[in-house]
């Protein structure tokens, strides 16, 4: 067979397989863990609001006790563009540092390993982390350039490397941004863990994760790291062409919980996205709750804060059709 004939045939096979996969009816979601999960939605209209009080209340509602724990706060620091809102706001991180100290954590550090840019501190500067967060440089670790250690078993990989700061933490708090995402549909607390993977080993971007598969990698990261909590910054999120070039979308909420699947499912419902159609949530429905009936909503109701985030054409079919 000539190359000229082979390429269209191979392409037709690929297209056929792809179409078949798309038309396949998704399997029923598992019920998830035995106990229901608490997710707190706290209203915060601006970053000048008393975020510390709201976080303290949210953590209390979710029953989190960080006393004596080494806490690693993992913000979402991706790139900086003054015209939009790519990163977790500095005020949210500063409030979280204060909250975990107040609640008796033995150590509170901030760690991030951005996926595209090499100059992490410069971005932190642009995002006002250095000016707003007290002692930022003393408590910050660039996870892309930290010392690393291998762990056995990560997805289908026999060995995978993580920053030692990540492996040493007793509790990892995903301080994510509520955004749409051009590869995953939405990027929330679980996708935020891409930044735990060291660029020094896997590059910029961490292309290995793309080859494992984005939803598969999100699932693998969240199966590996189970001592976690999420605080999602939805005070001003991002809609449209996220996670970098989208438009600011005020949602006026902080969403918190120990079950990151349930937190992300709740965020999706707030954003007008059907969480049962988000691949990575389907893949992790056994370790956390996607079904609304298994999530105890505390604080505000979803209906009271729900606001549809604009979706690019690629993800229009993720739109939540039912009324909350």
């Amino acid at each position, binding site marked *: 067979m000539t190359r000229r004939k082979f390429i269209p045939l*191979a392409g037709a096979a*690929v297209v056929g397989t*792809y179409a078949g996969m798309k038309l396949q009816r998704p399997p029923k979601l598992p019920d998830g863990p035995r106990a229901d999960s608490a997710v707190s939605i706290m209203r915060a209209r601006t970053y000048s609001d008393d975020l510390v009080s709201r976080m303290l209340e949210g953590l209390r509602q979710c029953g989190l006790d960080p006393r004596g724990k080494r806490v690693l706060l993992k913000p979402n620091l991706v790139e900086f563009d003054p015209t939009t809102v790519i990163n977790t706001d500095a005020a949210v991180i500063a409030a979280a540092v204060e909250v975990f100290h107040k609640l008796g954590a033995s150590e509170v550090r901030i760690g991030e390993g951005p996926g595209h840019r090499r*100059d992490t501190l*410069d971005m932190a500067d642009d995002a006002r982390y250095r000016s707003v967060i007290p002692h930022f440089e003393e408590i910050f670790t660039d996870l892309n350039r930290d*010392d690393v250690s291998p762990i056995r078993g990560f997805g289908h990989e026999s060995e995978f490397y993580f920053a030692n700061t990540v492996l040493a933490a007793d509790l990892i708090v995903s301080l994510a941004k509520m955004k749409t995402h051009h590869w995953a549909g939405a990027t929330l607390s679980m996708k935020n863990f891409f930044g735990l993977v060291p660029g020094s080993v896997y590059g910029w971007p961490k292309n*290995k994760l793309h080859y494992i598969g984005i939803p598969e990698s999100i699932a693998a990261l969240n199966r590996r790291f189970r001592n976690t909590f999420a605080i999602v910054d939805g005070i001003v999120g991002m809609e449209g062409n996220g996670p970098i070039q989208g438009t600011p979308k005020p949602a006026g909420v902080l969403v918190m919980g120990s079950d990151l699947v349930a937190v992300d499912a709740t965020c999706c419902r707030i954003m007008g996205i059907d969480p049962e159609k988000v691949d990575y949530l389907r893949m992790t429905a056994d370790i956390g709750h996607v079904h609304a009936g298994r999530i105890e909503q505390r604080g505000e109701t979803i209906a009271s804060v729900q606001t549809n985030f604009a979706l690019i054409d690629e993800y229009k079919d993720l739109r939540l059709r039912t009324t909350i």
Partner: protein
Amino acid sequence: MGGLYLESRLGFLRATQNTDGGWGYFPGKQSWFEPTTYAVLALHGAPDSDGACERAWKLVRSWQMPDGSSRPGALVQGGTWVTAHAVTLACVRGVYDAQVRRGVDWMLEVVGADHGLVTRAFSYFHLLKTKLDVSHEGWPWRAGNSSWIEPTSHTLVALKKVAGRYQSAELDRRVREGEALVLSRRCSDGGWNCGNPNVLNFELPSYPETTGLALLGLQGRGHTELNSPLQVARRFRMETKSSLAKAWLTIALRNYGDSLEPPAEQARTSSDVMLAALEALSHPQGNFALFGTGAKA
């Protein structure tokens, strides 16, 4: 030599070398190939630095894997893009032995997975979410992954430097292919980002640091092709706040013959080893020319 700016950085590098001979990204941390390379290049030929460079060279030589690649750090298994740095360092030290040859052979064997048949088939039928031209062969961060600007540029520098010693038709072809890949991934604003100029029909912006690195990889190309990206690089260099980006842009532009003003005589303030080394390299009296492969534009 060099005044406070250069001396404070070289002194910092001399003082922060690990006992195994390498450098960490930060003082006292595990040794990694990347900061060790830049530290050795910065210290190359500097007074009282021969011993430090020799110890580092021995260490990174010991990191070569049986397949010819080099591992990126003391505690990481498996070779990566830093193999390019191993070859560049060998060229700078004038070492052209069988070990270096194996490194070159590994680089010639590795091709970004985006050039694979399946991705090309997807591209042919416009099924990719990106508008990447996947017809060219570049280099990935790790074998089995896609090609990106930074590893491709470092590999181009290494192959061009070693070409005189290990001349082959395949080496020449891969250099041409690598250059074509870099040129095809230029962003619509004129510079380069990590290597993905468009996703889902949305144009993505370039970054200053990768623009500098891309230009290093493209040394030797003609004026007409590079005039516009050089202008972008000059603008980025004036505008960027990032010390890392400024250092890479300065190194690149000096290698294109730009006469740039020396930096203010300020002592080093950051504890970032890689940054200190790159800033030292970018100084007018620094070793920026060690990244040179013969610029035309």
